[in-house]
């Protein structure tokens, strides 16, 4: 469950630890920690849902996010929107028509790179639930400081001094960009360079997924 980091200094992500089947009442669940940031995700589906919410050709995906404080806010809706769009592009919804799939995320600790941790945990929980997916996705976050240096998977101290933070989500088949969102202001070249760095770093995350899946399944790995 624990993965060792790559020896290359440039592509160092914080240590990731994961446990699947963490919750015993959901169809799939995962708790993932990246450094000190922790999130737990539970996936239920395909479920029977009300006639009004049913969609004839595909599954209806519903995402619920709850923050540590418990009080709902607008930022939560934004996170739900991002996670929902990412998961929808990954899940083969056409195989589960007229059903619903629910993804629930609970924030446990936020020490930088939180939404990336949530997205990775979602992917692991979806794999654990056994839902048919087009591709898996990996999220990598990075921060750009005043001098233009790019730091992957930043810790809170680095986030304080950064001028911009970015998170990119790549898919496993062609490493193309699925989702991206940024904070702060930066130049075009910084954006492209950060995207390329994160693209290469996503390999580490995909390797981590493979390790986790092989530990939990009897046939693969």
């Amino acid at each position, binding site marked *: 469950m624990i993965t060792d980091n790559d020896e290359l200094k440039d592509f160092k992500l914080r240590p990731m630890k994961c446990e699947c089947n963490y919750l015993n009442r959901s169809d799939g669940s995962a708790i993932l920690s990246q450094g000190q940031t922790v999130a737990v995700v539970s996936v239920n589906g395909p479920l029977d849902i009300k006639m009004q919410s049913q969609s004839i050709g595909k599954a209806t995906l519903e995402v619920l996010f709850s923050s540590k404080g418990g009080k709902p806010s*607008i*930022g939560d*809706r*934004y996170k*739900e*929107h*991002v996670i929902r*769009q*990412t998961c*929808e*592009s990954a899940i083969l919804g056409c195989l589960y028509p007229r059903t619903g799939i629910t993804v629930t995320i609970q924030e446990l600790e936020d020490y930088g790179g939180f939404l990336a941790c949530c997205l990775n945990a979602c992917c692991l929980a979806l794999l654990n639930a056994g839902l048919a997916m087009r591709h898996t996705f990996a999220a990598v976050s990075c921060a750009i400081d005043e001098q233009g240096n790019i730091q992957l998977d930043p810790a809170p101290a680095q986030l304080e001094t950064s001028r911009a933070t*970015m998170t990119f989500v790549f*898919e496993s088949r*062609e490493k*193309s*960009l*699925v*989702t*991206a*969102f*940024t*904070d*702060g*202001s*930066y*130049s*075009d070249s910084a*954006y*492209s360079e950060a*995207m390329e760095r994160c693209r290469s770093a996503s390999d580490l995350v995909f390797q981590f997924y493979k390790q986790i899946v092989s530990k939990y399944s009897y046939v693969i790995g």
Partner: protein
Amino acid sequence: MSEVYKLIHPVKFFNDYISKNVRPDGRSFSEQRNIKLNVDAIKTADASALIKCGNTSVICGIKLELATPKAEEPNKGFLITNVELPPLCSSKYRPGPPSDSAQVTSNIVSDIINNSKCVDLTDLCIVPDKLAWVLYCDMLCLDNGGSLVDACIITLMASLKTLRLPTVTYDPETEDIKVDTNVQTKLKLNGLPIATSFAIYKYMDRNVTLVDPSSYEEDMCGGLGANLILCYNKGFLCSSQKFGGSNFSVDCEEKALKIAKERAQLAEEVIDVCIKNYESKTNTV
């Protein structure tokens, strides 16, 4: 006849157009709709602007209020932006509290304004720890024809540019506040963020990038609003959001960045011309 075809085979209807390199409303893939901008239409608001971009109409009204600054930030004023998507603008929204899409759009617009740092909150402070301006910027969508975030940002920037703050005198002993509306100062703006929306559609084996999508194109590309929003602020990117739609490759991205940069310059010119006309009219009157 084409209306019936659109309902029965929506995907084939759309694909027929895309295969001929044109969109259902007749534009090419990178053609943008014309922007029509008008400022100071609403006299009860302290500043207002109305934009009409194709079918999308958004009106922004700014109301000024006074309040005590927060204890942890005593020399900063407040800038509160909210986007409202009423049921009036589209049948997708029902009456009641703000829907999820309204909250998400509000969040995106608020993030863009905060990231670009175009308004320095310390400028809004009158007396540290005692009195500061609160700018309530409310964007109301009158007609949702796609590319909402673009329209909201342009109209917000145009209203901020025409906003004038009245002078306030504060007597520290009596805590008496006097506002003089005859002497007004312009709000200082550092930068002018302009957003561009794109929709990304997967046609056969290639990805097609549609600039400035209409609401029909946004629906065909997967739902809630534009897939890619790039925001330029004087040559620097201040926000890039991508969700949904199809996956994005590197060359599409470079093309999109170039188009967004050009659009930012175009929109900036439109805003400048509009405000110059407005100011010359108010100076002569």
